[in-house]
């Protein structure tokens, strides 16, 4: 009962962290050492979360896809529901031959997938998973997070360039066009959220939603713009022009095999999880919710958003590159800017009432 009260007050993760901190204090007896160890545990937890998410999402995606296409999906490995399918996939990937294409820019080619994973994993440090549970709660959290996540463009481009293959190169060029143009509406759609909450600190934004309404109700246009541009930023259907299997084989990762290719895959699912977390934090009220502990609410909302993104993927056909770019610059960006204007007028008007 005491534990339950502590969980309701400080959250599941917060309570676990506190217990672990007490354990470290008991063993080492020094605040400094315990603090450093706690940071290491936090980093390990985030990396573990990303890996587990990748495993669960590969299985989930195949099941969701099968459900949409009236099939059964994985049903052989590990019982009736194919629960061990991701493990089999992983073993297959790890045992594959590592093919290095001839005439590639060797060092840059090898760096590509590794560098891609860095910004993808780094932004998890800013996410508020529960009340007071964030590895780095920075003043300009949103801005720093967007800045770091925008660095994911470069690894795609250099892997495309270094593969010394036409398809990979076209894919790399498409990445730059797509990810840079969808960054603009994404950032401007978040501006409305920042204006309403009056802070760029992520925890403050969630707190603001517990006092006001959830921002999906106050910023519906921003929500739609954000979800669409997030789909484009993660390179998922209907905006998977970067991979475009039917057009350019697999884009920047056409020349990668085995674990190198798996790193791209891991980054893709880490991105899927992070945009779902971002949508939850900015628009769905983060950890706020009645009865259950905050972390449970957070997890439920994030999984719901993951399902929505998978739903998109198996519902819409792929767009054409020119349609996609025109959509970003001619529709999403003006919408996002208009939203900023209306939000400003609304905030100004509210002073008089």
């Amino acid at each position, binding site marked *: 009962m005491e534990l339950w009260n502590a969980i309701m007050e400080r959250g599941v993760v917060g309570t676990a962290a506190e217990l672990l901190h007490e354990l470290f204090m008991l063993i080492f*007896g*020094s605040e400094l050492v315990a603090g450093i160890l706690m940071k290491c545990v936090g980093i390990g937890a985030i990396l573990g979360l990303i890996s587990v998410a990748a495993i669960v999402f590969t299985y989930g995606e195949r099941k969701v896809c099968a459900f949409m296409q009236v099939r059964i999906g994985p049903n052989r490995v590990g019982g009736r529901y194919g629960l061990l399918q991701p493990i089999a996939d992983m073993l297959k990937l790890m045992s594959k031959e590592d093919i290095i294409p001839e005439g590639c820019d060797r060092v*840059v080619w090898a760096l590509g997938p590794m560098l891609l994973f860095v910004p993808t994993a780094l932004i998890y440090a800013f996410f508020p998973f529960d009340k007071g549970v964030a590895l780095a709660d920075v*003043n*300009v959290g949103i801005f720093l997070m*967007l800045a770091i996540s*925008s660095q994911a*463009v470069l690894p795609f481009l250099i892997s495309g360039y270094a593969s010394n293959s036409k398809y990979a190169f076209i894919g790399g060029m498409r990445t*730059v066009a797509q990810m840079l143009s969808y960054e603009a509406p994404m950032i401007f759609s978040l501006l409305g959220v920042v204006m309403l909450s009056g802070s760029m600190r992520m925890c403050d934004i969630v707190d603001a939603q517990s006092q006001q309404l959830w921002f999906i109700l106050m910023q519906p246009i921003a929500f739609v713009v954000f979800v669409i541009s997030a789909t484009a930023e993660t390179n998922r259907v209907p905006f998977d022009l970067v991979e475009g299997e039917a057009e350019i084989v697999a884009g920047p990762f056409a020349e990668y095999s085995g674990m190198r290719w798996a790193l791209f895959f891991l980054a893709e699912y880490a991105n899927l999880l992070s945009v779902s977390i971002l949508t939850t934090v900015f628009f769905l009220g983060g950890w706020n919710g009645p009865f259950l502990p905050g972390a449970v609410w957070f997890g439920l909302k994030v999984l719901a958003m993951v399902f929505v993104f998978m739903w998109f993927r198996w519902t819409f056909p792929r767009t054409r590159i020119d349609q996609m770019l025109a959509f970003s610059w001619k529709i999403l960006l003006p919408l996002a800017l208009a939203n900023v204007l209306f939000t400003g007028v609304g905030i100004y008007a509210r002073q008089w009432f």
Partner: protein
Amino acid sequence: MDAVLGQVHGLVAWALSLANDYDVPSLIEAGVFFLFAGLALLFACGVVFFRNVVHSALSLTATFICVACLYLSIGAEFMGAVQILVYGGAVAVLIVMAIMLTRRDDMGHSNPSRGLIHHVMAAGVTGLFLLGMAAVAIFSPFRSAAQPLGDAAPGLADLMLTHYVLPFEVIAVLLLIAMIGAIVLAKGADER
């Protein structure tokens, strides 16, 4: 059990007492500064000396990120974020430009080194620039704050949208003109 714990506590306390003679936080600060400053210089040399223009551009990104880390380490998070967002994003476009403008059979010699006279000229211009910057830094009336500002973004926004709103808008117009000019140059003005 208690004996083992006591041993561990004693060991940790002894290790920490070793560090007591030094000012550990400022040592760490200096270490971080020299690490990133050194890396930035190293990558900056890479920009100049790499033969392949794409490698040079990548090296440039690494330099920018090291400078951003320097900003972050002195508590200027906003500056660091701006540095990463603006320069990192710009470099991706720069690489695309470089590839499109210099694409040949062999990228290995796309960033050739010039003769001695060019080196001397470049060194001279750089030296003059550094002298000018030093003069500005010494004689300007602006001084850095005594301690980190903390949340700098609201103050910046206030200044930019009230006192400095005119220069801000003028720069925006200038950038717009530059963008339109670039499009006209790239597409040709008389295209129907």
